[in-house]
């Protein structure tokens, strides 16, 4: 859809192997090639253990790639260190699955959100506090929440606070790793709406990882399907059901339960029963 121009982030031939003491090494990523274009949202789906999180960690330097390159704006970033790594992180932010674990239990929510602004010296303390309140409201929380401790927020509120922190830095890329899996559907929907709104407003690029095909399809432009450490195919999300042809993708789609289909089914059956009864 927005595939025009050069990619903002490009993975080529990335491999990640976890060495395990006394056990066989795990090849979490094998020759992964992927590109993310400006303003795009790239979805990644796949079975548990297929390497989705590993990919995100490699991009954000939480893990060192075993081989291959990752290019960000034409700069190879897998060997960055120290200050340049810090500067890169400002541009590539990440939202994790378990929001509760991200919070320093002894830091109030306001400070949590304002901290990056101070760390990158983007503004003075006073201004940061102002900005924090703005961000809180932006993600649908109240400015009052700044004075709360993290455990005083609900899961959905926590996840929104995490997003507020990530967007505060105005990064170019945000990675979401199972960012909504811990939330129930209605709150998940709120967060997804927030994401789509943000994209519209700021044009931020994002990578959205989830095992829920339907959710990914809803937010992303393209979907990469991972299976056993490889990207087996990349399809346009709009054309997912029609154009996906890898057998794994198809099995994923077929196992997913669909409420709508169920409803249709049941209504159909009921009608049959009614018809039969009336006969």
């Amino acid at each position, binding site marked *: 859809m927005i595939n025009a121009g050069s990619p903002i982030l490009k993975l080529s031939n990335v491999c990640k192997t976890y060495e395990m003491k006394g056990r066989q090494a795990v090849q979490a990523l094998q020759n992964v090639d992927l590109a993310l274009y400006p303003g795009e949202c790239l979805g990644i789906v796949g079975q548990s253990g297929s390497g989705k999180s590993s990919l995100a960690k490699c991009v954000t330097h939480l893990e060192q790639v075993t081989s291959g390159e990752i290019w960000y704006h034409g700069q190879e970033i897998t060997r960055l260190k120290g200050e340049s790594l810090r500067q890169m992180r400002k541009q590539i932010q990440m939202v994790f699955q378990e929001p509760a674990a991200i919070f320093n239990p002894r830091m109030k929510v306001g400070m949590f959100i304002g901290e990056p602004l101070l760390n990158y010296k983007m503004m003075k303390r006073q201004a940061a506090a102002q900005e924090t309140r703005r961000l809180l409201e932006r993600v649908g929380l109240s400015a009052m929440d700044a004075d709360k401790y993290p455990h005083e927020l609900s899961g959905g509120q926590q996840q929104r606070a995490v997003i507020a922190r990530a967007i505060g830095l105005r990064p170019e890329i945000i990675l979401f790793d199972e960012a909504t899996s811990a939330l*129930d*559907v209605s709150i998940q929907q709120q967060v997804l709406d927030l994401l789509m709104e943000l994209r519209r407003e700021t044009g931020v690029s994002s990578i959205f990882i989830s095992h829920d095909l339907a959710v990914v399809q809803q937010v992303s432009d393209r979907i990469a399907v991972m299976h056993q450490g490889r990207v087996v195919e990349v399809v346009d999300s709009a054309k997912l059901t029609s154009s996906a042809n890898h057998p794994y993708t198809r099995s994923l789609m077929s196992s997913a339960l*669909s409420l709508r289909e169920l409803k249709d089914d049941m209504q159909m059956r009921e009608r049959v029963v009614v018809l039969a009864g009336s006969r």
Partner: protein
Amino acid sequence: MTSLRGGTTSLLVEMKNLSVSYKEGVPSLRDVSFSMKPGEIIGIVGESGSGKSTLIRALLGLLPVGGRYTGGEIIFRERVLLRDSQQDWQGMRGKRIAMVFQDSGSYLNPIRSIGSQYVEAIRAHLPMSRKEAWKLAIHTLARMGLDDPERVMHAYASQLSGGMKQRTSIAMAAALEPELLLADEPTSALDVTTQNEVMNQLSRLCADKGTGMMLVTHNMAVAAHMAERIGVMLDGRLVELGDTLRVISNPDHEYTRKLLEAVPELEGNHT
């Protein structure tokens, strides 16, 4: 068994105006009432923190630390369970009412093998020798689609994958063919394929043994797929309870409608 199940008057569970609250906090269950027939499957959905887990743990008399019954009663097989609390459940748990917890692995003792706990649980209710209990356990595990039940029996919880632990728990709950099975998000740790497999096992149990089941889940589709009736919880209240088709096609409550709208659907046809 069959005779008990037959009559319409013989309810499996009846809950009347049950209220539960934690320490100083607001009540987590407020005036919840419903009844359930033997062999019936009820799905419970609702917002996180709405009291779903509290509800089914209340049915087992095992409220989380700090939880208190503040009103109402539970009647199981015409017997009032909430008279003097703990005593009422003696001999019920495990045998007649069984439970599968959400994060099932953590409900197993980490320093005892699965086998020893399984055998212990069986022998707590049935007059069986160790050997017989072991055999029964192996049999039930195999039925849950676990390839190597002997290995599972000898393993410790930490040596099993999430999916294996979950299926083990279900097997432990099912072994004694309880009259009521309480399942709190039994498939959340499983990927879609395994999830389907486990759900099939559970429905078969209900069909074969006449076990009534209460299934708590986030996943509307799963609830709709499994349950005959669906209940929706909000803020500790059971705001809606009705036949599955009616609830998903024609919800009464505003919140149910919101919930249904939020369910993500794969776009396009793929079959």
